[in-house]
């Protein structure tokens, strides 16, 4: 079922990523981790559909926010990150997916692992954790190319309303900030062992990113003793214009 969303706010997250907030009149509410499909139709009737994770915390204001990374050869993302203006109306389908979700009733430790724009649904979980004042202990391991590519930086690093932010660890794969004490490189077994929840605490793990990233991060979690049953993944492919 397609619904109409009216663009109510735009915010640049990085040089290539933009958050778009919609108000959707008949929005039934969503859970952190769910996604929406966005459909663009051109004057000649050609339409393109892409999936984007919802970044906004569940709310009663019928507000849906996504963050879109502009892909150079993309069919949809250049339009969404450059042309869309406040007041525009777009077609949305959702909320979608009932598995890659975090609910405030969950009290176990939560391990989030993001690769690049895979941070988006995990951010919704962090925001939901905060707005629900959940006591669940969250950790985030965020692999990102360089400091300028980090989404939601201010929000990730600062506590809000005295609720402690999750413990956030960055893994910079190409360039780190000046004076960065850690090494530069991909997530590996040492980083997983030193910064993620020990497997004996039985955390639920959510991993989101490009397919190859998700495969390797999930394998590292299993090698560290986590049960595959406790690992939920969302891959978005190398070329798929998602998130």
């Amino acid at each position, binding site marked *: 079922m397609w619904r109409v969303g009216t663009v109510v706010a735009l915010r640049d997250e990085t040089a290539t990523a933009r958050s778009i907030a919609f108000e959707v009149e008949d929005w039934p509410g969503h859970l952190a981790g769910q996604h929406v499909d966005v459909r663009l139709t051109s004057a000649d009737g050609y339409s393109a559909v892409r999936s984007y994770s919802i970044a906004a915390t569940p709310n009663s204001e019928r507000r849906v926010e996504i963050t879109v990374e502009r892909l150079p050869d993309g069919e949809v993302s250049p339009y969404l990150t450059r042309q869309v203006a406040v007041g525009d109306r777009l077609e949305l389908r*959702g909320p979608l*997916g009932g*598995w890659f979700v975090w609910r405030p009733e969950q009290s176990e430790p939560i391990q989030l692992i993001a690769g690049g724009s895979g941070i988006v649904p995990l951010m919704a979980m962090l925001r939901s954790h905060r707005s629900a004042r959940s006591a669940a202990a969250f950790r985030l391991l965020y692999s990102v190319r360089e400091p300028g590519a980090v989404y939601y930086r201010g929000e990730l690093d600062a506590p809000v309303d005295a609720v402690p932010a999750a413990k956030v660890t960055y893994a910079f794969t190409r360039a780190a900030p000046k004076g960065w004490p850690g090494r530069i490189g991909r997530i590996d077994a040492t980083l997983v062992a030193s910064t993620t929840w020990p497997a004996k605490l039985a955390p639920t793990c959510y991993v989101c990113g490009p397919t190859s990233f998700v495969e390797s991060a999930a394998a590292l979690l299993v090698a560290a003793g986590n049960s595959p049953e406790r690992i939920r993944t969302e*891959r978005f*492919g*190398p070329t798929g214009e998602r998130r």
Partner: protein
Amino acid sequence: MSEDDCLDGNAAAGPLSTVFAVDLTAAECQCAHCGAIDRFARTRLYMTGPGVVARCAICESVLLRLVSAGQRLLLEARGLAYLSLESSQIQESGQ
């Protein structure tokens, strides 16, 4: 079909919602070929062809295909032995 094109079953939620009123990605399903039981969201999904193909994460058999051809939508699911949902899942996603 390359490994890099593989998504998770949860990515099929949108296309499946064109046919089903309830979210099936959180449902438990059994592979008719090898008998593996898991959530549909954990199947291996390929969306690079003309439709959606879900394969068993264990034996790679095709579980479900959803293809749109012309004015027709075709759903084939002979690779699925069953889908099982809790009633709370049905109420939650009822729209």
